[in-house]
């Protein structure tokens, strides 16, 4: 076991409740995320895991509760502001830009850092080009890291599923986020692909010190990777703790295995 570098609380979820009409999706959820840790959210289908991520990055606005990010209570924000604050994510059902190449997709991840204006981009030579080249270099490093050099110029719509997942991870990484939200990055993968993806997740966490919030159904992967785990079930928080604690929690066992009534 290598040395973990876990810092202070970077994001705190306090008493979040979210409803769509009459349906209560999240009910009084509270947990915190520490700098540099791998934090997993698990639970059966429909437990509200993806909704939780959507609350964290500002897509859904909860009716109750607050989010404290980097010590500040977060006001209601627009969807595109999360990226500026350093929150990037991948999606359960891949949300890549299908008509664009791998390279361009990952380049979009750096849109926050592109500063040249419309006129400079229209002329291209000069500032815009310098900027393009600078970011291209970073993106190429990400491409090397994820071992996707060969598909650099392929439109992502033509790539197999596993590769698309990887490109999506690359796009999120390109933003150099504080927190990386991964929504089922290994869903539908075979063992080998899962191993690759697990390695990437660990490397990202280790090399860049990125805090990772992970939703995953494969319990083996979750228990191996995570520092701490939150368990949700039908919008209710069942447990929160280290993988071992969660594994032995009676409520969790009941939710996963079912109880005789």
């Amino acid at each position, binding site marked *: 076991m290598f040395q973990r570098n876990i810092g202070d609380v970077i994001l705190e979820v306090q008493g979040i409740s979210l409803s769509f009409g009459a349906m209560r999706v999240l009910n009084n959820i509270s947990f915190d995320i520490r700098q540099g840790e791998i934090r997993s959210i698990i639970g059966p289908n429909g437990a509200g895991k*993806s909704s939780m991520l*959507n609350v964290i990055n500002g*897509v859904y606005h909860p009716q109750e509760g607050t989010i404290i990010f980097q010590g500040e209570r977060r006001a209601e924000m627009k969807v595109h502001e999360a990226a500026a604050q350093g929150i990037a994510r991948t*999606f*359960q*059902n891949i*949300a890549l830009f299908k008509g664009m190449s791998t390279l361009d997709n990952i380049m979009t991840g750096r849109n926050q850092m592109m500063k040249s204006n419309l006129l400079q981009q229209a002329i291209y030579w000069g500032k815009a080009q310098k900027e393009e080249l600078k970011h291209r270099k970073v993106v190429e490093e990400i491409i090397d890291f994820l071992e996707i050099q060969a598909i650099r110029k392929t439109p992502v719509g033509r790539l197999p599923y596993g590769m698309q997942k990887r490109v999506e991870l690359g796009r999120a990484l390109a933003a150099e986020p504080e927190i990386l939200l991964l929504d089922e990055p290994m869903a539908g993968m075979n063992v080998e692909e899962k191993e690759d993806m697990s390695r990437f997740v660990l490397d990202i966490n280790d090399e860049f010190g990125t805090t990772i919030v992970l939703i995953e159904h494969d319990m083996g992967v979750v228990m191996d990777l995570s520092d701490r785990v939150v368990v949700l079930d039908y919008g209710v928080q069942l447990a929160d703790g280290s993988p071992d604690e969660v594994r032995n929690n009676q409520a969790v066992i009941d939710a996963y295995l079912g109880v005789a009534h």
Partner: protein
Amino acid sequence: MHIERDVFYIILASLALMVAIPWAAGMLSEDIFFEWPFFFEVAIGGLLAGVMYSLVALGFVLIFKASGVFNFAQGAMVLFSALTLVGLQEKGLPIWLAILATLAIMALLAYLIERLVLRPLVNQEHIILFMATIGITYFLDGFGQTLWGSEVKILDIGFSNQPGFYFGGKILINDFDLIAALIAGVLVVSLALFFQYTRIGRALRAVADDNQAALSVGIPLKHIWVIVWTVAGVVALVAGIMWGSKLGVQFSLALIALKALPVLILGGFTSVPGAIVGGLIIGAGEKLAEVFIAPLIGGGIEDWFAYMLALAFLVFRPQGLFGEKIIERV
């Protein structure tokens, strides 16, 4: 039918505005003549014209619901059916036979469109199918006029076109408009019943929800499409007869389709009641605006008023009055 509360309020608010704005304009400006009987005359005339818009919009909605195709050719189908009807009548066919023959031709057209256009383009993006229907529009406009000539023709189906006085002799209404509205109403109700209670209607609604799923439970997609396009053809023929006998059968009938577009975005692309209510609001709003607002800003605003009205609506309710709310998931 279940109506959302918001929709109810929007309709109420539009009604209030339709009364308040002309009244205020009449009070404030000397150029505007405002009297209550005159107001109602204009409003009713507008509503009756609106029924005709609804009729064209209805054809759009049917096809959009069943196949997701935004059928730009609906207006061309109106023109084509009216041209064919008049052409057959001129050849000496009695009117009932001419109507039957035209119906048969519209069914054949629906079959050909399914076979030659829709089937090869199945699973293409919506914009491609939309473009294809523009292609159909051009073809039908050209074909109809090549076949039957392009001069204005008179279509006489034996209804009087005399204005009559109603409500104690104070309000002038065109008899023809009343009859047209009545027929359109009957058509709408029978279509609603058809879709609600027949087997084909149920299959159609299933296809509208999810055509892959419908296919997998054994609903023959291509038959459904032919049926829907045929029904849309029938609706087009009715609209063609109404508009044709009112305005004469001529190329401008095809342009009426464009007027049905704001009706559609107001009512929602997938809603039959939306097409009706949208048509009424656009019809009345347009006439009222033309009479009570246009003189203040130069006149002739009928060209764009319906679109602007629909646009203003959309900003508040992007899915239209009765359209399904689009929920985005990630």
